[in-house]
């Protein structure tokens, strides 16, 4: 779905088309670095002893861990002809299952919509993607919806 702004020029064949984003091997180090960099204090995210005693049997990743693999560059270029600055506009992440060290996560994404609006920064175009992360057992661990905004570098 997209609003019918004649200025919205992009590759519309990508709307709804599933795209493979590849896989990543999760390590203990990644989990600990993510937790440490974001100020997590719950020992379940970095203390091996606490992890062993927990229901999970090991440390687990914080619930937004899959974000560290969100990178606009790994998605296809939709060829949007608007703006010269792209920023992350918002995200929804639903954590469905814990992510543990040695998990292998596979991501796939699809373009949900592209639309225009105006705000303090002037005219903006939003591109929304839906991404799912599955582990090595085929279980979905996270569902993510990301919104990116394109605008002119110098706000009017």
């Amino acid at each position, binding site marked *: 779905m997209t*609003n*019918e*702004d004649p200025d919205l020029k992009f590759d519309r064949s990508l709307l709804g088309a599933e795209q493979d984003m590849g896989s990543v091997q999760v390590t203990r180090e990644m989990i600990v670095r993510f937790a440490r960099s974001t100020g997590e204090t719950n020992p379940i995210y970095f203390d091996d002893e606490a992890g062993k005693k927990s229901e999970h049997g090991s440390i687990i990743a914080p619930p937004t861990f899959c974000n560290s693999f969100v990178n606009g560059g790994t998605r296809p270029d939709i060829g949007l002809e608007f703006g010269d600055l792209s920023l992350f506009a918002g995200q929804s992440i639903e954590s469905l299952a814990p992510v543990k060290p040695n998990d292998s996560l596979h991501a796939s994404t699809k373009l949900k919509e592209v639309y*225009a*609006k*105006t705000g*303090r920064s*002037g*005219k903006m175009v939003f591109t929304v993607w839906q991404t799912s992360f599955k582990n090595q057992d085929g279980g979905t661990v996270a569902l993510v919806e990301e919104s990116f905004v394109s605008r002119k570098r110098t706000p*009017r």
Partner: protein
Amino acid sequence: MYLDLHSHSVSSDDSRATVEQYAKWVGVLRGKGFQIDGFVLTEHRKFDFDQDYSALSADSNVLILKGSELDTNFGHFLVYGVTEKLTDRVNFSDVHMDGLELVAAAADTGAVAIPAHPGRFGIGLCEFEGDYSVLHAGERFNGSNRPGEQERAEEFLSGLNLAGTGGSDAHLVSAIGKCMTRFEGSISDETELVREIKGGAFSPVWLDDTQQG
């Protein structure tokens, strides 16, 4: 009668509040002694004809009305009394529409369009030149203003001698009712809301000023 004239539900792209949660939160506010009779959903660039909140309204004893917030070349406008006559004439998703033509189209079809957050940087009416003699009112209090924007709105509307409304511009549940419009008359539907806005017997209020006892 106290109504929040500017709010967004999950039907707007950047809100995270459901209408049900807004209605529940009104109950929380009333429990704390604040006066609030209802709110108007002014979704971005659309009007939800298919949504019927009458049952929720009755169950929660909260008046829930519908309107729209539209992007125009004169900034954003709040539109009340939206009908299919208006949406047939104006493309609500067009962010380039002419704001003054919107005001005229609204007037022709029994609706009313007023500038939203006229002091807002980048998209407030105060940043554009035009003949604003056709306006009935403007949004004087907006709950999402940043430093400086409230003052700009008040100065602008005072300069035009325009009556001012109040609305929270809520995008989160707990923001509903942050500021509202106090109407002298009684309102039970969108038609009466349009009548009262055109009548001018109202003033903007902050939630804190409505606390009783």
